Every structure is written in C-alpha cells, then in structure tokens.
C-alpha cells in the first residue's frame, strides 16, 4: 500500500469512527502483539492463512507476523480460563506472504470483532447489522450482504450413509466441484480411492472375529519382516491398520459418494434472494430431517431479525456455499461487498477453540473489516491546520498554548505568508485583521466560522 497524508488521515478517521461505532455495541478495544508463535496460526483451519503466513526463525523458535486477529482472540480467551462472555475489537496491520505476486509481502489493515462465550441468532443478526452500519457511518453506500451456512451443510451431509472420512474428503473437494468439469474431476478422484487395489491384510482365520485386531497383527508382521516399520513418519501402526480397514470397506459406498457429490453441486449452485434461496434449500432437506429443518428455520429467523434492524432483503443474497473453510466455520457465515469488492466477512466458528486446545467447542462469532479496501472511500471531516509565523523578537508560546487549548491545530512555519502572523507588538493577524491576546475568543470564533464555510 502506498501511503499519502490523505490516505493516512482517512485511515485514522475510519478507525476512530468504527471503533466508536463498535463500542456502541459493547465491543471493547484490545491490543495484541504483532508477532506470535507461528504454531498458533499453523494449526488453525484455513489453507489460505497457512499458505500465506509470514514466518521467521528467532533462536530456534518459529515466529509469525499475525495474519489475522481471530486465532489470537480465541487463544487469549483460553488463557483467561473463563466462561465469561467477551466482546472484543481489534485494529491494526496484518501480514500476508504471497510469493506469486509482485509484492510478496502484503501489509493490510483490518478491524476485527469477536464475540466469544455465547452466541445466538439475535447476537449474530446484531453483529451483522453492526458490520453494515459501521460502513454506512463512514458514508459508504450500496452494500450487499451475502450469507451462507456451514453447519447446515455438514448436517445434511451427515445424513448420507457415508463414513466420516469420506464426508471429509468430499468437503475438501467442495470448491473444485463448482469449477468447469469439477464434478467429473472429483468423481474420478473418489473413483481412484474406491477402486484401487488394497493390500488385504486380514485373511481371517476361523477363530478370529475381530477384524481390527487381525489387520493390525498382519500389519505388524509385514512391517517387522521388511523393516519398513523403522520409519513411521508421525503415524502409529494403529492409524495405518484402521485406515486399511476403511479402504477395504469403502467400495460399498460408491453410490452414496456419487449422491454426495451431486448434492454438493446443487448446494453450490444456490445463490439468490432469501425467499428463492430458502425454497431451493428446503428442497434439499428430507421430510424427517428435523435437525436440518431447525437450522433452516434459525437461518430464516436471522433474516427476519435483520429486517427488524432495517436491513432490506433486496440487498441480501443467500449463498449456502459461501465459506471457503468448511472445517473452521460451524454455522452462519457472511460477507459484505460493494460492486463485488469484499469489504469484510466473518461467521460462526465454535470449533476454533478445540483446534487451539480447548477440551470442548466455545461459541464464537466474529468478522473483520478489510479496512484498506474502503478507507479511501471515507469522507474526511474538515480539520484544518493553520500555519503560524512569528517575528524573531517575540516568543509565541503564549499564543500557541492558548489557541491549542481551544483545539485549534497550528503548525509553526518560518515564512511570513502564514495564516496567522505574530506581530512585533504581540498582536496576531488573521485575514488582515489584528487580535490582541485578550481578543483570543473573537479570533477563535472567526477561525471556526471560516472553517465551516
């Protein structure tokens, strides 16, 4: 980013306006270091974060410049060892490494909000409304809100008779399915898994009924006899034997896998105004699936609450497949755009806490403004800085102190063409009019009148 004085002023004003706005909703400003242990970010979900992490090694410890605030917020919350509800806001630079671009190291400015400890439909709607109204405070209009849902996707997939691994595999190919020839590509990949020959390690002897035990025994024999077991990478023999059993049984899942791929394709194609989109989603929910039905109802309720907050549905798009990271978000996800430029986004991410070491999920909802994308649109409030010159024989300290006490911004300059000129008799001239120190109120009044014009 190239900075100019104007850019900087816009950024400062945008940050101040948004911080004030966010605090109206109870979000307390927090500071956080720029540099953290890289592991904090390397374990969290989000391939783009991992791919673009800017790391360095300091005395054997791998450190990273923060790529975002969310993981930091959850890590700080876990450290507090509390169950209190926290509403935090963060602002500052985040760093990304993008080796394929001209500017490999990208420094961006984010303002981030995290609600941790308790989340419901009302708080989600309130935060989304807050995100939109913050931008409107900056004078930015014509915003579009797009909302998706990761939790409903997972729930619907869990209804298919597929094991967890296969569902996970399909989800990892989710984005690819929507690309040209994507379905064929994914089906071919899955077909490879379904049809590859697998070492059959369990010719079950008559007295063995435990499939797992038999496979593990045979694996031990093979690994020991060939000395292949000398190098295990980070896996155990049990990891390998369990996966072998899964692979052996997977060929029975072919039809269900195809159904899963077809479902994901339909899911990814929905992007419409709420009524139309919810109708399409409803058609994907089976009649006896009350759990998914409840999620859909909550989602519809979210839109209804947003409407109560004044958010018109014609500016809302329901796009169920919005989230890039399926294993990070767990519920509602949303993004704010203007003319297809993303100004911010976020969602529900209960499972991030477990990824970072919590024994159980912690409800959390947050978003980030990508501030460097819209601060140039911020309307600058008029804050003039008056130039002040003084003749060498006179000490201007008194005038300067008193004017600044009245919030008049002044900049000392050497030349005589300044806005305010201190004369040898101690008077200050402004626009051909002289003022003594006792007339400072008149001067201030005239200065403010001129700045309002």
């Amino acid at each position, binding site marked *: 980013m190239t900075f100019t004085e104007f850019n900087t002023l816009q950024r400062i004003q945008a940050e101040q306006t948004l911080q004030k706005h966010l605090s109206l909703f109870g979000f307390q400003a927090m500071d956080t270091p720029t540099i953290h242990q890289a592991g904090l970010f390397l374990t969290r979900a989000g391939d783009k974060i991992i791919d673009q992490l800017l790391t360095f090694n300091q005395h054997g410890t791998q450190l990273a410049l923060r790529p975002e605030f969310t993981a930091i917020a959850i890590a700080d919350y876990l450290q507090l060892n509390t169950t209190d509800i926290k509403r935090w806001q963060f602002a500052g630079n985040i760093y990304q490494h993008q080796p394929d671009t001209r500017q490999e190291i990208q420094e961006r400015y984010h303002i981030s909000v995290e609600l941790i400890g308790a989340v419901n439909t009302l708080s989600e709607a309130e935060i989304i409304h807050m995100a939109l109204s913050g931008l409107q405070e900056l004078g930015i209009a014509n915003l579009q809100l797009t909302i998706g849902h990761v939790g409903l996707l997972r729930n619907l997939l869990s209804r298919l008779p597929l094991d967890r691994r296969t569902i996970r595999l399909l989800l990892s190919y989710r984005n690819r399915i929507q690309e040209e020839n994507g379905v064929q590509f994914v089906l071919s990949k899955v077909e490879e898994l379904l049809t590859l020959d697998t070492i059959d390690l369990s010719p079950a002897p008559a007295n063995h009924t435990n499939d797992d035990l038999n496979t593990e025994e045979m694996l031990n024999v*093979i690994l020991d006899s060939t000395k292949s077991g000398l190098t295990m990478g980070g896996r155990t023999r049990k990891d*390998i034997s369990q996966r*072998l059993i899964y692979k052996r049984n997977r060929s029975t899942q072919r039809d269900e896998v195809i159904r899963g791929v077809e479902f994901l394709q339909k899911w990814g194609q929905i992007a419409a105004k709420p009524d139309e989109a919810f109708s399409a989603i409803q058609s994907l929910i089976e009649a006896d699936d009350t759990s998914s039905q409840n999620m859909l109802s909550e989602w519809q309720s979210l839109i209804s609450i947003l409407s109560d907050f004044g958010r018109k549905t014609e500016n809302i798009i329901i796009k169920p497949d919005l989230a890039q990271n399926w294993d990070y978000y767990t519920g509602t996800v949303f993004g704010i755009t203007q003319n297809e430029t993303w100004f911010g986004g976020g969602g529900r991410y209960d499972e991030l806490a477990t990824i970072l070491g919590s024994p159980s999920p912690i409800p959390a909802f947050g978003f980030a403004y990508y501030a460097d994308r819209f601060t140039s649109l911020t309307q600058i409030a008029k804050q003039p800085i008056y130039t002040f010159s003084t003749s060498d024989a006179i000490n201007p300290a008194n005038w300067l102190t008193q004017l600044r006490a009245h919030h008049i911004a002044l900049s000392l300059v050497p030349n005589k063409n300044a806005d305010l000129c201190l004369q040898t008799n101690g008077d200050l001239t402004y626009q051909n009019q002289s003022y003594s120190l006792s007339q400072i109120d008149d001067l201030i009044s005239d200065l403010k009148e001129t700045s309002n014009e």
Partner: protein
Amino acid sequence: MSDRITLALPSKGAIAEPTYAFLKACGLKVSQPNPRQYTGNIAGLPQVDVLFQRVKDVVYKVADGTVELGITGLDVVHENNSDSITILHNKLGYGHCKLVVAVPESWVDVESIADLADVAIDFRENKGRNLRVATTFTNSARQYLHEVGIHHFTLVRSEGAIEAAPTLGYADVIVDLVQTGTTLRENRLKAIPDAVILESQACLIGNTSALKNPQVLSTIRIILEYADATIKAKNYHQINVNIRGKDAQEIAHKVASNPITQGLKGPTIAPIYSASGDEIENGNWHTITITTKNDNLLDAVDFLRSIGGTQVIVSPVSFVFLQESPTYQQLLTKLNHRG
C-alpha cells in the same frame, strides 16, 4: 551493451559433468584453464565467457541479469519462477529426475495422492497438528499440494538429507528429487505413484531482458542449432551396406520398400568400382547409405541382409540439422508475441 556474453554452467552436482559432455557433443567443448577459478571458455563461441556456478546460483544469476544465459535443472527454474527468466530449451536430454512426494514405506494404506489428502486431514483431526512436509522445493511443493486438494500441511524447509527427515522425526513426508529411487528405498520411503510434481531435466535459460540484444540472440541461435541437431542425432545411426543388384534403381526400390530402411528422405546409392576403375567382378555392386532410428537398427540390418546386403557398417550420427532449428523458431515466435 558489452560485446561479451556470459553463460553460467553448473560447477558441481549430478548435472555438471553431463552438461560438459553435452556441450562437447554439440561441438562446443568447455575449457576451464584454471580449475581453481570459476571461469572458462568455449572454443566454438569466442564471444562467450563461461561462469561455473552452483545449480541454484545459475538461476539466480540469470534472473538478476548478472549472466545472460545458463544451463541448469528445470526443477530449480520451476522452484524459482521469475518473469526475468525465459526457458530457451526445456529438454536438453540429460539430467533426468522427478520431483515427487514420498511417504514412509510403512504407510501401506497410502497408494495415491488422494490417500495422502485423507491422511493429512487425519493428522489435523486426530493428532491436532498439520502434516509436516520436508523439502527444499517449498514453492513447488506448496503449489502442488494445494492443487491436489491438500491444504493442511506445514512445510519444513531443509537443505540437506531430506530423506532422513521422517526417520529423524522432524517431518512426516518429503518432497524431493528422485532419479533411480535407491535413496528413497534405503531410507524406507516410497514415492507415491501419481504424485509426480515435475519431470525435470537439464534446460537452457536466458535473461528475458538480455534477449533483446541481437548478439545474445545470435549466440542463442548457435547453441540451439547445435543442441537440436545433437539431440535429434541421438535417435539415429547411419548404415552403410554393400548390395548387388541389376541397377541402382532396382536396389533403391528394394531398400526403400521397408519403412525402417527408407532413411530421412531416401537411400543414397553409389556404385562400387574396383581399384582399376572398372566395375567389380560379378558387377553391379552398390553402397547404400541410409539413416535409421536406433530402435529399428537390428531389424534394419536383418532386412538389408535379406535383400542381399553385406558388410554392413554402422556409425553414430553426430548432428541432424533440419531446415531450421525448431526450438529457435519457437523462441522467436514467443518473443514476437511478447512484443
């Protein structure tokens, strides 16, 4: 612009000696007057100075314009992709190796990259950490793993003994170059069959800006002409065989009746004369010269024998120059498109 052109060649490693051998076969023998110095020359290219560098440094120096040309491995060029490098010839025909993903042999359940994608997610869900991938090719590895749908991994950059990383415990899998696969096997690793990131061999590269210099382009043309001709020649042998027949036309007809003895255009036929200048006794002996592909050599010899050929002399072919160097023409087309 200077009149001198610098060509960087690998100073050590598996690709160094084959590079000198290749250039020698091209008729461009490399000399290093002082083995302690890093400079040399090429007899057939008086305007060229040779600079001996490590394989990676060849790429860096071509990229930053310190040298105009270089020969190095395609794997290194791919890893250090830059707009300031133009690949002039991507298949010099030696230094073959593959950049692959390799896993411990004990992972008998991993037979494809899709299996590895599944295991990567296992690591996250069950072990709470990312799959660790040791490699010196961080850019190539990262790009490939994302392309095949593996998004959860940590790259462990290592400059040496990559194959030992899983045994030593600081990585789970590796991305590394393999030639025969022996080193992998000895370290109890196996390459995943469908996880070949790149098939590499020696390549000729040039600094993109330097290509605007006519003298550089002229030197490149010479190198590419010889390179194309040498590479093409490797596929052929020349056969000289004596055959007796009614006349040259009859013999030509017999020889050309088999596609493998038709030669590049057709057989060359010359009559054989005795020392006195008369026709040899039992007359009508002719010498046939054809060029045949190496794969067909023995079949060609057998056929020529069957039509009466004897005293078959086979010679290697040094160069096969076509009407123009195809690689040089492709380069010109590419440069014209760039404008």
